[in-house]
């Protein structure tokens, strides 16, 4: 059973055991428009909650992707290098960015669950 949580900066993290998979939400990909480049972190690097972990670029602009929680990067989605548009077509699936081993799982409690994120989006509209 996996758990999915969201940040107010429009990242998601799906957690199974001590591994979290991170991407950006459908709202984020829609706001950005056509994704043309993704800069992924290096495997083995440590990321800190709320700081830059990756970069996503649309035709118009570059945006930072923040780490939702602390962790060590264990995998990156190399398919995005050739097909960055996967972020647009399947943001919560094939458009994942990286995986990390959580070093401070208690941080997950600070994140939004699905319903809370939906309410947050409605508040933005």
């Amino acid at each position, binding site marked *: 059973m996996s758990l999915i949580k969201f940040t107010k*900066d*429009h*990242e998601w993290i799906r957690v199974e055991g001590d591994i979290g998979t991170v991407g*950006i939400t459908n709202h*984020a990909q829609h*706001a*950005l*428009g*056509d994704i*043309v*480049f993704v*800069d992924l972190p290096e495997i083995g690097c440590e990321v800190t909650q709320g700081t830059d972990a990756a*970069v*996503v*670029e*649309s*035709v*118009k*602009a*570059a*945006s*930072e*992707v*923040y780490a939702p929680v602390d962790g060590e990067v264990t995998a990156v989605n190399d398919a995005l*290098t050739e097909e960055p548009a996967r972020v647009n077509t399947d943001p919560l699936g094939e458009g994942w960015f990286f995986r990390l081993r959580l070093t401070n799982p208690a941080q997950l409690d600070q994140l939004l669950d699905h319903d809370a994120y939906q309410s947050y989006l409605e508040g933005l509209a």
Partner: protein
Amino acid sequence: MSETPDTPAEAPLARTPLDALHRELGARMVPFAGYEMPVQYPAGILKEHLHTREQAGLFDVSHMGQLRLHGADAAAALETLVPGDLLGLAPNRMRYTQFLNDNGGILDDLMVTNLGDHLFVVVNAGCKHADLAHLQQRLGDRVRIDVQFDRALLALQGPAAVTVLSRFAPQVATMPFMSYGEACLRDIPVFVTRSGYTGEDGFEISVAADQAETVARLLLAEPEVAPIGLGARDSLRLEAGLCLYGHDIDETTTPIEAGLTWSISKRRRVEGGFPGFPILRGHLDQGPNRRRVGLRPDGRAPAREGTEITDEHGQIIGHITSGGFGPSVGAPVAMGYVTAAFAAPGTPVHLRVRGKALPARVVTLPFVKQTYYRG
């Protein structure tokens, strides 16, 4: 993740005559040069860009400033402010030039059309009020200025533009690039120039504000035509190697540095008679210290405006002034200024993107072949 915030509006934003149509078409509206403008429609920037290169795109550029300069002396008077050859401009022909300051820096770039008894001038949206003040102050009674900032301007661009517009006005088919004609679309009178900002064949159509939506709907009803926003307008002009005022050219760049020497005729290079002539003459004789060039990153990462350009040893040699992803090129493209010694096509350089030195090459502009109709 972070999103680049839109520029906060300082004053209430103006709306073009096509505002309601943009919203009906599902455009995402953003502040631009004091206007609410469509940055993209639901198709998105990539598809809009490619559609324009393959068929035809309709752009609302009504935010740009349209002016008419009347008076027997208008061409000679305007020549005192710009380096373009206006006395040598044949009737119904259009020319690109720049308002210069005393340092030869560019105050704005503009299009001038000779309509026989007066000049038709189109300037950038963000500069139009300053341009008008400049004209009034510097030309005074030599010209009578008819300000037509409320008039709409549509651009129909792409290889099918001529096919589409010819259905309404067959005479436009034989208009050469950079020429002017008058036409009626159904019963609506319009002024047409064969010009644009995409590198493609196409037209710019000036129409009264209250008839703009009718004209736009007529053109959009044609199967080849899709509405195109400012996002694709920017990527199209970047691939075409065309300057965006305030980015690739401004008050600190001269037309020679910017690679716009072609827009200054032999007579004007010799005679001068425009602001900044001694400096431009020096740039022509000795060569400028820096030049605008095209840049192709070797990898996939786009390099944006402001990115430092260095030599292979890390020494800064310039900055990118426009950069992004070129949908038709299928790769990142950029332009910027480099020290003259590095301006030759093929020169290897580095671009500093997020702390990394990304290899790139200086290339000849444009990135895509221009397909203007020369008749």
